[in-house]
């Protein structure tokens, strides 16, 4: 059988091709260990701030104490002027400033609402958020103390009837973060980036493998396409099992999907990746160029997938373009299925698109190889010279 002989020769070529094996097997394993390291602490804690205390009273010192005792903020020291504090900020010693104005305690007790100023460095959003949040919480901690003092000051009047009650908040917002209760980076970034890594590595591997093949007019196109798909599926399926099974548990990422749903979807996704990789391998002509192209596209691609910057905010033409890359549907559907516990019915549109892309890219790879091998030689050269250097 012609197909089996092609499969055998491609398999031999794959085993001998160290670059492809490195990219497809060692690469994902290396990234698996390397990529999560910055996020291993999951959340940001103890950001340093300076306090400018112009009031210097018991209440202002209490505020400093509460701020320091919150997990998000750490008081690095006191500054005497805004200028000095700003200097510390620019040196990177602190990231935020708490300014307590003169008369803070008096105004608070006398009910003439004083204003605190929080200044935080928003060049780093996570640091900014945690400082503002920490300071806000510690200000809230002061409220009971102020209330008691006011009761003493105003005596009977304050305790009388509903007046005392009014100091309480009438609306209490109870926020429940769903799917990622710690609001951490591991569930947010890793769950999606792992899918991106797998996709990119497999496409690079197939690109290198396809580019290092010597295409001749007698190349059996269909056998080549399908034998590559089978060979890379043998690499891909264990990698998926490793990343989504062992990897997700290892890093503590949620996986809510039932195993049947997950594999049904993943097989469609893998089919689509393999078809895309095949096509990619047919159009690049030097192995290293495959890596260059994928390397350059990875960073911008991550921002177009909808997990960092929401799909609602991405302009329609760009969104349409990204939908031609299997990873778009893969990431979005797997996040919904695995992290957010959606059922298969609701991610079915993504699944359908992946299958369609798989068929499309298989046809396109057929066309590409056909043009490359059987087309009129002189015009073919002009066309492919573009990629041949």
């Amino acid at each position, binding site marked *: 059988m012609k197909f089996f002989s092609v499969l055998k020769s491609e398999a031999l070529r794959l085993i001998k091709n160290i*670059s492809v094996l490195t*990219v497809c097997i060692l*690469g994902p394993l290396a990234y698996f260990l*390397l990529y999560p*390291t*910055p*996020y291993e602490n999951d959340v*940001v804690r103890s950001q340093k701030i300076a306090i400018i205390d112009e009031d210097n009273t018991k209440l202002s010192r209490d505020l400093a104490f509460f701020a320091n005792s919150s997990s998000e903020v750490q008081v690095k020291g006191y500054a005497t002027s805004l200028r000095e504090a700003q200097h510390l*900020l*620019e040196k990177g010693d602190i990231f935020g400033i708490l300014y307590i104005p003169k008369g803070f305690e008096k105004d608070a007790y006398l009910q*003439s609402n*004083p*204003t*605190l*100023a929080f200044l*935080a*460095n*928003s*060049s*780093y*959003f*996570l*640091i900014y958020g945690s400082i503002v949040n920490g300071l806000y919480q510690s*200000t809230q901690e*002061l*409220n009971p103390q102020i209330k008691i003092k006011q009761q003493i000051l105003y005596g009977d009047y304050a305790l009388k009837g*509903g007046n005392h009650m*009014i100091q309480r*908040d*009438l*609306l209490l*917002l*109870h926020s*429940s*973060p*769903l*799917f990622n*209760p710690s*609001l951490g980076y591991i569930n*947010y970034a890793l769950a999606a980036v792992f899918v991106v890594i797998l996709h990119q590595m497999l496409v690079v591997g197939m690109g290198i493998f396809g580019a290092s093949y010597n295409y001749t007019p007698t190349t059996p196109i269909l056998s080549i396409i399908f034998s590559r798909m089978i060979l890379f599926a043998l690499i891909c399926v264990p990698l998926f099992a490793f990343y989504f099974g062992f990897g997700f548990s290892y890093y503590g990422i949620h996986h809510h999907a039932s195993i049947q749903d997950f594999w049904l979807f993943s097989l469609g996704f893998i089919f689509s990746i393999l078809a895309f990789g095949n096509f990619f391998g047919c159009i690049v002509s*030097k192995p*290293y*160029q495959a*890596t260059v192209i994928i*390397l*350059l596209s990875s960073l*911008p691609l991550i*921002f177009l997938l909808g997990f960092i*910057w929401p799909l*609602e*905010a991405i*302009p329609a033409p*760009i969104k349409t373009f990204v939908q031609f890359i299997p990873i778009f549907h893969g990431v979005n559907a797997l*996040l*919904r299925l695995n*992290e*957010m516990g*959606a*059922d298969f019915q*609701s991610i079915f549109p993504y699944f359908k698109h992946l299958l369609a892309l798989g068929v499309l890219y298989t046809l396109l790879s057929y066309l590409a190889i056909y043009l490359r091998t059987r087309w009129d030689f002189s015009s073919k050269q002009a066309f492919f010279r573009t990629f041949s250097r």
Partner: protein
Amino acid sequence: MVKEIKRDLLSLLKSPFSLFTLLIPAPIIAVILYFTFGSGTLHKMPIGIINQDQTLTSQDIIFSLNASPSLRIINEYGSLEDAKEDLRNAKIFALIVLPYGLQSNSKKGVPTSIPLYYNAQFLLVAKTLQSKIMQIIATNNVKLKLAKNLVENKTFIGALSKSAPIMQQITALYNPDSSYSQFLLTAVFPCSLVILVCASLLNALVRDPRSAMEEKVGIGEMLSLLGAKVFNNTLFYMGWWFLMMLFFTYIMDLPMRGQWWILSLGALILILSYNAITLFIFSIAKESTRAISFISVYSAPSFAFAGITFPTNSMNTFALFWSALLPISYYLQLYIQQANYGGSASVGLELCFSMLPFMLFGLVGIVIFTLRGCK
């Protein structure tokens, strides 16, 4: 050397892939990401609501939620069960429940808790939505308290101060609008630029049989050859860097408070460092496919390690170590120090010079090149 520079430029013209890498990706990445992030703030993120109260107070809260530019109520649900699927599907990013008795409780002075369920998987949307909703509820809270206090206090100021004991004035330094495009693009563009530097130098080395170590040449020729390639590549990318800075300053209107010469010096050292690292990697790998694999492992995750999104002070030891091995982390610190803070020249120069040790890779690379590629 001049002869080699000319020869390299001629070989560049004959190599479409090198030209492609040099000219096409940079503007494409810039344009796509610029339009993707737009103004850098989130608009009209879809949320859902369950209004069990159906009174004037709850209508008022819904009205103020809808009036916020960041939110848009796309659906009112009858029960949690109905809303669950849309939350799981990210059709809505948050769900607010206005419970029974909201209005009557607030008139009586009894606190009511308002549950907010939000999708924290999309962290960026989650944080924005949560803080916006918190602000809106807090404002409504003060409004309700004020109404109640006015009944007893009779004066507006007195009633207001009782309703909000301590006021907070929050200032976002250096990025006053909290714009994501300023936050992310100032980091993503340089990270892409250095990947391009590596890729282009690799192309340059591969397209000449002498630097690809396929032909043996004399030491002098090898040195001037490598010098010419690094010189050309550095010049091109200083040009791109300058265009990028113009893009930041004039098209995105970002601040540039520091000294241009310090930042340019930093960029020059940054680009030279990545040239040096590429030389080193290629001299060891000897072959293009292997070299680019090493370059990918080294440079592809640099955005995560650079400490802009997830700050370095919260990373573990290994990540800190890896971050210190990337020239781009120093450059981004320098950029923030100069462009955002307008900081002192001495600190800026210190950051520039902390990238200098990476040049040693270049020296080692050249030595290996001469050992391997010379007669």
